[in-house]
């Protein structure tokens, strides 16, 4: 590859001379592909007509480039890539969840100011707080693109878990702050909260996520929230003594949930 192409040969090549033998042509092109010097000499070796043609092409290209609309880069508070973790549909429901927790907190603070000590609403609601978000994480009724998403390779428990994780990442810090303000340690509500989330995901495989989440929330409301408001005592289920029970329940539910992978990959 030491020898460069002579100027005369380059001139013949640029003019498209049919007299160049096929093997020579092949060798020249191989060399040109690798040698920037010869390529630039080739550009100079072109005749006047080609140069004029190139010039007109450049003028047209530049006109077209400047006429094209400049690409506007929109700044967004939620970039499109975030759809890999959370659908735009889920966001309003997460906001609603946070608002519900804040209302419960306001109620607790107002009651505490009067000196009475009924069970804290924040603690009573905490175990089922993520269920609103979880219910809307994987459903055709609210998510317009659901049928498209369900038919893809990634559809399934993995995607559901991603979205559930986002729900928990938003809801748990809010609950922690609200719980701290009413003087309740996370030990009381965190395990039940995870147990309910795992339970909804496990049941959701069979009956669909919204139905599973609503069913569990209703069960909790009638069995625990209602009676404890009436009797004005915090139920035993939310005491620290119940913690090992909730942990065991979460583990068992997760073990039931994990082995069966394909449950969420079809329409219901």
């Amino acid at each position: 590859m030491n020898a460069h192409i002579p100027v005369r040969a380059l001139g013949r090549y640029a003019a498209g001379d049919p007299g160049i033998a096929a093997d020579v042509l092949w060798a020249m092109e191989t060399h040109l592909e690798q040698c920037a010097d010869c390529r630039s000499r080739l550009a100079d070796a072109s005749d006047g007509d080609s140069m004029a043609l190139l010039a007109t092409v450049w003028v047209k290209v530049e006109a077209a480039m400047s006429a094209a609309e400049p690409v506007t880069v929109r700044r967004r508070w939620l970039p499109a890539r975030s759809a890999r973790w959370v659908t735009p549909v889920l966001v309003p429901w997460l906001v609603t969840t946070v608002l519900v927790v804040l209302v419960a907190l306001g109620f607790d603070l107002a009651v505490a100011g009067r000196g009475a000590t009924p069970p804290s609403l924040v603690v009573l609601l905490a175990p089922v707080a993520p269920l609103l978000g979880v219910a809307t994480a994987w459903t055709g009724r609210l998510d317009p693109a659901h049928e498209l998403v369900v038919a893809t390779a990634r559809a399934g428990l993995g995607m559901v878990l991603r979205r559930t994780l986002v729900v928990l990442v938003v809801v748990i810090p809010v609950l922690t702050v609200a719980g701290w303000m009413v003087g309740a340690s996370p030990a009381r509500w965190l395990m039940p909260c995870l147990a309910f989330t795992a339970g909804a995901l496990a049941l959701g495989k069979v009956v669909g996520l919204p139905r599973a989440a609503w069913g569990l929330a209703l069960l909790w409301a009638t069995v625990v929230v209602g009676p404890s408001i009436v009797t004005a005592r915090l139920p035993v289920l939310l005491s620290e003594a119940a913690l090992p029970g909730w942990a065991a329940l979460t583990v068992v539910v997760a073990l039931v949930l994990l082995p069966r992978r394909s449950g969420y990959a079809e329409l219901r």
Partner: protein
Amino acid sequence: MRKGISAALLAPTTYAWAIRAVELRVRAGRRLAVDGLDLSMGNGVHGLLGPNGAGKTTLMRALATVSRPAGGVLELLGHPVHARSDLRTLRRSIGYLPQEFGFYGRFTVREFVEYLAWLKEVPAHDIPDAVQRALERVGLAERGDSRMKTLSGGMVRRAGIAQAIVNDPEILLLDEPTVGLDPEQRLAFRSLLRELGEHTCVVVSTHLVEDVVAACTNVVLMDAGRLVFHGGPADLVELGREGVGDSSAERGYTELLRRHRAAGERTA
């Protein structure tokens, strides 16, 4: 840059038909919408015709693996589809456009197709190229940065077709793709179909007999969940030399349905 050819591309196919169904039964809700269907389809464009409620959409959903068969055998690319099969690898080779599909309005067309490409596990470094190619094939490259909610009905449908072909599927399922397309777009779509059908098994469900005759290599006619006719479009035209309808293909369609129903009444 052209990528090297992978071993997977060169591997011989180990199945006779891209789609093979034997005595296939699929439920839509409680009703058996596909009831004992025998069908084998290879590469080419297969037009799926039938009256409303014939089970076309249910069949398409079963082929897209979002509805599991209630009975019978379904094999896609030699891969059996039943209640327990893991469909992840199979689904990477399927493209699906549902009859009704939604989208997130604030996404641009490119973001929408990119999101679906990611869900279909297209390798990350191939996604930009694959999305651009898909948008060019459906003629939406210039609107790539428009938001989905600003598109007309026909453009939304084309964006849907783009997401279906973005993973270069071996089975492409299009449920009513020509709804909302104007005559010019329909012509472009038919030529795209013919091009895709050379290397892909394309199944197009439609109401429009003339679309099938113009663009399809095979006609599949269904009624009440069963196969009525499977043949070339020329056979349909041949059958329609006399009968009720505006074109000979339409006459062939009504004639086939009439004969099938008459035979059904005799055996009943």
